[in-house]
């Protein structure tokens, strides 16, 4: 939902991006209209339009005149690339920095990562049972 920390138009753009990334909005699927976004999130329609238009500018959405807004082909790949880049900056770089500080070598770090993966799997399994 909408929070106070950032401009609303950015949050609207992100909500749509999330739906495209996790497949809830397929490529070539129609996106709700800005008025529908405005009514649903109870926000100013001009603000909702700004969020949607930002994705149009980035080639994630495209307009069909008189019909509405659609997810562009290739949008998901584009977003995944961008999110992987962000993942590297937000998670991997600080992780590597901290690992260096603690004297954890590359191999040890790789081992830890695979251990954390199996660790998650076992804990998930135990929850499932």
């Amino acid at each position, binding site marked *: 939902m*909408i*929070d*106070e*920390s*950032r*401009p*609303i*138009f950015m949050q609207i753009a992100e909500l749509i991006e999330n739906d495209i990334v996790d497949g809830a909005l397929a490529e070539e699927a129609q996106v709700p209209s*800005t*008025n529908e976004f*405005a*009514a649903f*999130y*109870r*926000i*100013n*329609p*001009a*603000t909702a339009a*700004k969020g949607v238009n930002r994705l149009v500018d980035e080639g994630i959405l495209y307009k069909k005149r008189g019909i509405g807004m659609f997810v562009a082909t290739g949008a998901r790949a584009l977003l995944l690339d961008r999110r992987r880049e962000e993942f590297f900056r*937000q998670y991997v770089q*600080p992780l590597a920095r901290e690992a260096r500080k603690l004297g954890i070598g590359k191999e040890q770090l790789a081992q830890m990562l695979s251990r954390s993966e199996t660790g998650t799997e076992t804990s998930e399994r135990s929850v499932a049972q």
Partner: protein
Amino acid sequence: MTAPGESTIIEIRNVTKRYKDTTALDDVSLNIYGGKIYGLLGRNGAGKTTLMSVLTAQGFQTSGEIRVFGEHPYENDRVLSRICFIRESQKYPDDFSAEQAFASAALFFSNWDKAFARRLADDFQLPLKRRIKKLSRGQLSAVGVIIGLASRAEVTFFDEPYLGLDAVARQIFYDRLVEDYSEHQRTIILSSHLIDEVANLLEHVIVIDKGKIMIDDDAEAIRGSAFTVVGTGTRVAAFTAGREILHRESLASLASVSVQGRLSEGERAEAAELGLEVAPVSLQQLIVRRTMDPGPELSMNGAATELEVSP
């Protein structure tokens, strides 16, 4: 932020309004652009109603210039027929029913939508045939809200339109406002002290305090423009050093400091490393901080987030 296509529909230049010994508006200059939802916010007595009154020719300024659609609004029917002003305590002829009030509004406002007014009356469960003086305070407010929405005037002023409306009825008002504005873009100027409720509906925010304009900015530009840092006093002090401080509170070794400005990702990470909590300051809190006298008795209960206690 003003896009090139936007047109100024109201110009206010150096407007001052004095009543006997009080200055209600103090050298106010402002442009209102067409097609936006404005929030006119501020404490009671800050000058909101006075500003709306002079813009709608219900009062006359002591000095300064006002142009509405390029003309003087005073005794100017060409201008006034394009404006709807719903006051906090709007008066209607005593023996009128809501239905009759709507019928006379239909004569005055050329864009009046009769079917929309009917739907709104249903939404608010307003008895149309009952005489207005027999209506409850909330029902009376509903009459005003319905006239304001169904008139579809080019400029609509809502001055605290919801005295006596409960939370459900206010939500109906906000929802219908957003829906109808989506279909029929026009200029809405909404004065409110329920800032948290209306913040997301606004495109532009004007904050007035003691007769002066304190903020005149895009709602999106204001959002996230201040933050509060909470944690160990010394660390909070070090982290907020050199920033413009809006408010400070402390409890034993803990401090909570609100500052103007935005944080970069790096600064956020730094705060987290120092064990500091960072939270955004809402529009309502921001206005409280900026319009509160920093007197000793007020800073004692500085945690209050309501601008005022409603009567």
